[in-house]
């Protein structure tokens, strides 16, 4: 799928005269269905591993040195950023993959919203880094107490998954911006599902940290 001349089962290319910036797939193939299954299975796996972290937290909570830490207030702002990014990726997805071939203007709009999403995602990561800096300024490091340990572990693992999402979005942005290129609609849909999931996961983790840490 690297050039406009590539024609395969997953993407359609148009004649040069009417070619949009990005083109979408007409019918869902079994490969698309498999990648949809794949993304849901992936989300299930990530959920399961965070469930394991959560149960570890519950067990650890019952021990004597469990205390309390004040969470940095920037986390509220970060939460706002990530939830906004869920909105922008959804707008972008509607422009880019409405299930029909789209004109140049729409795909341009889509790519702008995609860039917004990317920027918000990166801003969230920077915000989380600032939250860590604020905790360090209070003298709370990874090994200071179990509460700070769990905060760093949970937020770091979440950011790690988010960075993977950012990498995929960056790739997709590149594909959209490079004219005459194609990509699989299912890939974009799945990236959006993953991104929404990371938002939900963050809300859960933030609530958990607020209640327990």
């Amino acid at each position, binding site marked *: 799928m690297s050039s406009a001349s590539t024609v*395969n*089962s*997953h993407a359609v290319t148009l004649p040069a005269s009417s070619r949009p910036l990005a083109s979408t797939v007409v019918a869902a*193939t*079994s*490969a698309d*269905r*498999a*990648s949809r*299954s*794949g993304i849901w*299975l*992936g989300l*299930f*796996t*990530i959920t*399961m*591993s*965070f*469930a*394991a*972290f959560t*149960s*570890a937290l519950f*067990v*650890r909570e*019952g*021990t*004597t*040195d*469990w205390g309390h830490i004040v969470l940095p207030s920037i986390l509220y702002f970060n939460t706002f950023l990530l939830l906004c990014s869920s909105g922008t990726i959804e707008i972008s997805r509607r422009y880019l993959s409405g299930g029909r071939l789209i004109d140049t203007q729409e795909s341009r709009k889509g790519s702008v919203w995609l860039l917004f999403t990317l920027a918000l995602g990166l801003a969230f990561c920077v915000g989380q880094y600032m939250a860590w800096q604020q905790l360090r300024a209070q003298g709370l490091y*990874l*090994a200071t107490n*179990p509460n700070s*340990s769990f905060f760093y*572990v949970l937020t770091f*693992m979440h950011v790690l998954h988010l960075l993977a999402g950012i990498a995929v979005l960056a790739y997709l942005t590149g594909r959209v911006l490079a004219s005459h290129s194609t990509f699989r609609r299912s890939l974009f849909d799945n990236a959006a599902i993953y991104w929404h999931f990371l938002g939900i996961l963050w809300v859960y983790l933030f609530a958990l940290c607020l209640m327990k840490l």
Partner: protein
Amino acid sequence: MQETSAQQGHVHAPPEGFIRKHVFSLDHKVIGKQYYALALVAVFVGMFLSWLMRIHLVWPNAKIPGLELLSKVGAPGGVMTPEYYLSLLTMHGTLMVFFVLTNAPFAAFGNYFLPIQIGAEDMAFPRFNMMSFWTTFLAFVVLIMAFFIPDGPPIAGWTSYSPLMAVGKDAGPGMQWGASLWGISIAIFCIASLLGSLNFIATTLDLRAKGMTLMRMPISTWAWFITSCISLLAFAVLLPACILLILDRHAGTSFFIPAGLVISDKLQPHSGGSPLLWQHLFWFFGHPEVYIAILPAMGIVSHILINSMRKPLLSAKVVIYSMMSIGFLSYMVWGHHMFVSGMNPMSSLAFSFPTLTITIPATIMTLIWLGSLYGADIQINSASLFALGFISMFVSGGVSGFFLAQPSIDIYLHGTYFVVGHFHMVMGVAALFGVFAGTYFWFPKMSGRMMNDSWGKLHFLITFIGTYCIFMPFHYLGLVGNVRRYSSFVDDFMGPDLMNLHRFITISALITGAAQFIFLFNLIYSRFKGAMAPDNPWNATTLEWSMPSPPPWNNFGDRHPIVYHDPYQYGVKGSKGDFVMQDSPEQAIASGD
């Protein structure tokens, strides 16, 4: 006709060049063979370690030639230290459980035959598939590196119980960098297994050929499918556990290390951690892992037995449902490994009940195998012998599980050779018998050549008798109170009779291990010099036998298989004999006899 991408075009281009064909291949068949080769290397290393351990157990002062080359500290002058015995024990367990029992029956055969048996051209995500093998390979290399670093492999056993595993070098030799390598290796292995399982599930759900309904899938495919569901859940929990373990070891956190812990006369700078937490997380993975090893073997054995009996099982559906219930129950029983851990005794009761319940589907399956075998005119060859051997091992090893499942009896038997005998038979040897059966059965398809059947039968005979000679006495030793994980025993502790029994076990282990070289030789010799195999040497019905041996890179070529029948149409009249193939449009007519 259902349009799948495999049918419209090809999932990936034909491989060109040595690297794409044999090293970084996207072809599920090559990846399956790579997994098999890795498991083969791991099993011989693991077996060699068990030889060294058995020799040390009965001749603790024996000089083992060449051992000093492996570790100057662990075996000064070729005589193994007790600590090095524990290092070898850890590596034996880890290699066998992760790199053999998970890789061979599930990843190797599953990769090769699952897509073919459902009529797909490849796995759903060929690149993930390649990544999962090479990630597994990386995990193997990281683990083996522990042999070659100055402080050697860890001594914590394959279960790596905290707090000893979590505190670092104060816990003994190998516990500094060796233990870290262990943790990193297993974390990498988890990622690889997750990628692989995800691929298996998506492939089974979405890439089945036309007519291949779920209930028309062969039992082996069902077994790999259920196993991948279990594996997806289990490794997703072990990975966080390993991350927390590595943090405890290197970042000074206290997830698993309690306060006031003194090891090697040193107060550990940790507080408040819970050693039981590690056990919970580990066994939540660890018990399902047992079924990750055994379920594929059950599937393979059923698949082979049906072919050898030339008739279907009494009920294939019940076998499938039993495997599902085993998979489901496997998540409710992890606490039975922790009866003596100091856990609340009420929890022991709660874990004992589902553990005893899990014997019900296992017994149902056994009865279906035995009931189907009753009166069957079974064709005896290497594959069917190992399949029968599997049932024998599964029953003999499984029966001791009834005892261990009860907390009151387990308090006595826990940590003795009884447990070692139990899990070696029911999980280790039984699963390996499944792998042997699968190898003799599918080798013609995988290589295009037949394996030597006489050598195979000899291999079976020695292995079958040998494993009983090794592991049955373990149960007896456990009953008289022989604890496990001790590096050697002296006569006045054990009594001379028991030492003689230990010597008998060691000699049996040496002979049985040596017999595996018959298998290895057969495998390598047949690969190059074996008789040419026809496409369907066993007159079998499933899709893998409808293609050339070995299959081309795109499996079915330009043919789009359509499935018309249940997988096991044996004992019926067909144009090719007493069977009708799954993709043959002809009607199956019950033959008169």
